[in-house]
């Protein structure tokens, strides 16, 4: 007989939490599917929004950094391609961070009325931004055809870096969305961080522009490692990865993921009382 005994006690972190998470995988899929199918309802151009936004930003950056500021590209890669190869992970990171951090307050009615592992909500929103990412990846393909630029074998590593970008956003996203339940201040922090981060991260320029002695420090921004990785995969050898820096970015991502999950788990029990 499939008898499961559940004990509810204060401060008890359930042993079967991760098993529970697995049991609720269908809810995860359905919430993700809901977010995707609702996202562009009642809009005129619909999914095209996922293309228009990064595309326009890419043009502006190419003009400002490439033409006006005349920053160097990686080798002889077209500047627009270099910008867009960074735009992809950056948009993925920023939208999933934004969505994840607002996700819990957005589902207040669910949280106060039904039980399920709360981790499902922010992680499901990340899927939505991933779908947007796939759509805007089509532009990348289009641009590569336009510039007659063939990717090398490096592109096989791309899925790894996509996952890295998602994890990079999920860590702080989980932490902030949990804090958001208690203190709504954090709702105003994320848009600012995202806006600021766009200029701090090497999106509009190559990370080689940064002087050698500062590069390690620069990699404390986890997105530097991810963006470098994307460029390396898509544009090939010209945009080599600075490995020590990449290790630091990776460590930061792992640290934030650990922080996010543990903090989220800690606060999860009281969400329904505070939201």
């Amino acid at each position, binding site marked *: 007989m499939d008898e499961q*005994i*559940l004990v509810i*006690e*204060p401060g008890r972190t359930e042993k079967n939490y991760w098993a529970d998470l697995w049991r609720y995988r269908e809810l995860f899929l359905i919430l993700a599917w809901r977010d995707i199918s*609702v996202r562009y309802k009642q809009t005129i151009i619909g999914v095209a929004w996922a293309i228009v936004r990064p595309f326009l930003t890419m043009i502006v950056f190419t003009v400002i950094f490439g033409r006006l500021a005349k920053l160097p590209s990686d080798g002889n890669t077209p500047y627009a391609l270099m910008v867009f190869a960074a735009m992809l992970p950056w948009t993925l990171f920023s939208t999933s961070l934004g969505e994840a951090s607002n996700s819990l307050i957005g589902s207040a009615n669910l949280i106060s009325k*039904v039980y399920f592992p709360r981790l499902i909500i922010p992680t499901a929103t990340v899927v939505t931004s991933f779908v947007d990412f796939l759509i805007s990846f089509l532009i990348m393909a289009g641009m590569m055809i336009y510039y007659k630029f063939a990717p090398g074998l490096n592109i096989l590593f791309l899925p790894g870096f996509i996952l890295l970008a998602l994890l990079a956003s999920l860590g702080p996203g989980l932490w902030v969305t949990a804090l958001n339940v208690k*203190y709504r201040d954090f709702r105003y922090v994320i848009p600012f961080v995202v806006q600021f981060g766009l200029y701090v991260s090497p999106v509009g320029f190559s990370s080689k522009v940064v002087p050698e002695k500062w590069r390690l420090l620069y990699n404390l921004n986890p997105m530097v490692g991810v963006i470098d990785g994307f460029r390396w995969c898509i544009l090939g050898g010209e945009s080599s990865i600075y490995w020590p820096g990449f290790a630091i970015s990776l460590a930061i991502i792992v640290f934030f993921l650990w922080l996010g999950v543990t903090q989220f788990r800690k606060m999860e029990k009281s969400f329904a009382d505070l939201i």
Partner: protein
Amino acid sequence: MDDIVIKAEKLGKKYTIGHQAQRGGYVALRDVIAQNVRGFWNKTRDLMQGKPIIQGDQQEEIWALKDVNFEVKQGEAIGIIGRNGAGKSTLLKVLSRITEPSVGRVTIKGRVASLLEVGTGFHPELTGRENIYLNGAILGMSRQEIKKKFDEIVAFAEIEKFLDTPVKRFSSGMYVRLAFAIAAHLDPEILLVDEVLAVGDAEFQKKCLGKMDEVAKGGRTILFVSHNMGMMSNLCSKAFLLNKGLIVKEGHMEEVVSYYMKYVSTASNTDKSYKIKDSEKITKDMYIFEANTIDDSSNVVSNYKIYDPVILNINLKINKYLQDVVLGITVKDHHGRKIFTNQRPLSSFELKKSNNNIVFLVQIPAKILVPGTYSFMIGLHIPKIQIIDLLEDVCMFNIIDTGSELSMYEGSDYGCVFANCEWKLRI
């Protein structure tokens, strides 16, 4: 014992609430600034320590549940009774793991589903079909299960035509019907239900009740919170009575409901009974000195079950006997509509002239009045000649449905009396 499925031990749930301090007199700018700075400092400190922000200057702890112990056996249907704020919903929230208890522990055996609200997580932009899958998943059904029951749900909700319409275009009736239909097809071992049956029109309510009954009889364990006593009496065999977070009584439904009503009435019977205040009246020849409603063991009460007789106790004082005096009562409902009048000439009783203090007991037969709030008009008069004493709207009392055949329509107007008609087939 093996068949205990829910066991709660010393369960408690604490909330902290804030109060604004009382401040009299005029307010100086200096004080306001100082207070804001202090507030900011306190909030920052709370943030650092990970405490939630509580508005107000003074904090108070409230125990929504305190020292709650109980056991529920496999297949029992249990009603949870209590006034607003007694902790009923908090108890369900703790049991369904939505919120964590502050102390104590609960052990639950089996799959739990909770229905604290119908239509949780419905998305207005999605169609009826999509929302069935969404809501089903939220309530804990698997896709396979939903698929299997899909047609049944749609038929139950009677929305076949609108399956592919976004629910934001649904009428509110269709919306709740769909929501309830999904919930009703949940198939857990333990079901926690919070006041969700009060949806839809009478027809649909009857259907819902039938479905709940079926679930209860199907050997599943149900915990049920409602204010609708009639419905609960029909569904549940046992009950818990909660008051201020404590279980004050548990046992058979009938027993707990009686206890609840007595206990509610002790809290409020002082203004429900009448006693003369007007000193002018006592110079009259005859007057009503006191009147109150009592139960069959002479306790003053104001809540009756439909199967209880309502007894009105009238105390007359007599200074001088008058001829042809009639004592009459009229029962009025809460709209002020008169339900019936009943009267007796005093001469029909054998009264001793020397007795200047007479007590009458007027018994209204059980199961005449439908559930609701009523009051009495009591009059002492000589027909067509003189009104000697008249009390308007005294001795308020409530009739509470504890399982009549019409209990499913509770809240809607189905008339003002129960009539025991004879029905037969014409051959």
